[in-house]
């Protein structure tokens, strides 16, 4: 579909906010892969990830009016919409129940709280970079970014003071940054 047309981010946002359906088709063509990667890094099950991606695009279409360019680029916003939808799904009762019905492979090597309930996700993108971080940083990024735990929850689960959680996450993020540059 009209792959020859390209829009600047501003034009695209303006058209989306005007409910232009062609611009939405363009958005899907250009970003569904990247966003599916984001969702798949959090949700292993392909069928669920696909449902979530559909939900992500519906959310983008519905919430585009609240997107504020002053606060970040369009992709950053969409990426956070995708991450939030994926985490909401993972933490939902229904998803947790469905996981319990499956045989959970023994993850003997892990002491990460919550990871026992998660199947292995594809090691791509940020997730792949994560493996290069040292353990204490890896755990914190995984729990906060990929599993959506709040700093408070992490502090309680890992029995680390809240202040330490915050400084370690900040430190982990700066390391992450140097790795993906």
């Amino acid at each position, binding site marked *: 579909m009209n792959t020859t047309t390209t829009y600047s981010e501003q034009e695209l946002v303006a058209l989306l*906010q005007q*409910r232009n*359906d062609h611009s*939405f*088709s363009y958005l*899907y*063509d250009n970003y*569904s*892969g*990247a*966003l*599916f*990667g*984001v969702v*798949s890094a959090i949700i292993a099950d392909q069928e669920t990830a*696909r449902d979530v*991606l*559909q939900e992500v*695009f*519906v959310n983008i*279409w*519905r*919430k*585009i*009016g609240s997107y504020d360019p*002053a*606060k*970040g*680029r369009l*992709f*950053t916003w969409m*990426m*956070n919409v995708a*991450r*939030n939808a994926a985490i909401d799904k993972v933490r939902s009762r229904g998803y947790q129940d469905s996981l319990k019905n499956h045989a959970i492979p023994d993850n003997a090597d892990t002491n990460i709280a919550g990871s026992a309930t998660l199947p292995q996700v*594809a090691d*791509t*993108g*940020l997730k*792949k*970079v994560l493996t290069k971080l040292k353990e204490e940083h890896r755990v914190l990024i995984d729990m*906060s*970014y990929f599993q959506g735990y709040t*700093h408070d929850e992490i502090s309680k689960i890992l029995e680390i003071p809240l202040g330490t959680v915050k400084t370690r*996450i*900040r*430190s*982990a*993020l*700066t390391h*992450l*940054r140097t790795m*993906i*540059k």
Partner: protein
Amino acid sequence: MNVQDYISSGIVESYVLGLASPEEQSEFERMCRQYPEVLQARIDFELVLEQQAVQNAIAPPPALKQQVMNAVLPSEAKIIPINTDAPAAKANWFKYAAAACAILLAGSLYWNISQYNRTQKLQASYDEVVKDYDSTAFRLSEIEEEIAMLTLNPNIRMAAMKGQKISPASFATVFWDTTSNDVYLQVNNLPKPANDKQYQLWAIFNGQPIDVGMIDNAVFTGEKKLLLQMKNVRGAQTFAITLEKKGGSSTPQGDMYTLGNL
């Protein structure tokens, strides 16, 4: 903490990845507005992240696009778009309309208040003008009556009383109706009396002074009247004004200010 330390503290990554607390978010947004280098650091990381995501894109099943498009823009059922698109579009429209209404309302309110104040002021000055007009018109009709009474009545006789030695500039006029015996006095010029004194008008008939009444001191303090109605008198050849003690005397005691014959 200087700006560079702030940038390298991990806040940029924390914000962009959606891990910052609401307080950190608003602080970061403020820093972005204040320091171009913070904003640039944010954009740089956003681009890195976007590039990273694009490189690690996973193509969703091709059939998903149609599902998504159907969920968002159903083309077959015309009614559904109202149910799906409308809330967002409507909410947006409503937001702008509400904002516009608020602005209009504020503007209108301000206008109304200023108009109200203006109207109040105009009403007050209008009332004052009407009052002035009423009293002037009333005064005018009084004067007209008085003039008519004096000029149209053939029985009126006049005595112009000239100032005497004590006050040569004094001057007053008496109008006497010979049929009704009414006496009117016009005070043309008399010095203002002391508070305990009062002018008294006399008619002199066959050498005898007859009291015709007191001149109210208010005449000298502003409540000007063209003509003062005095006591009736049956016969007179001469009129005179003397300055007496307040309330008057039965016979003239004080200085004579004016005197005139009919």
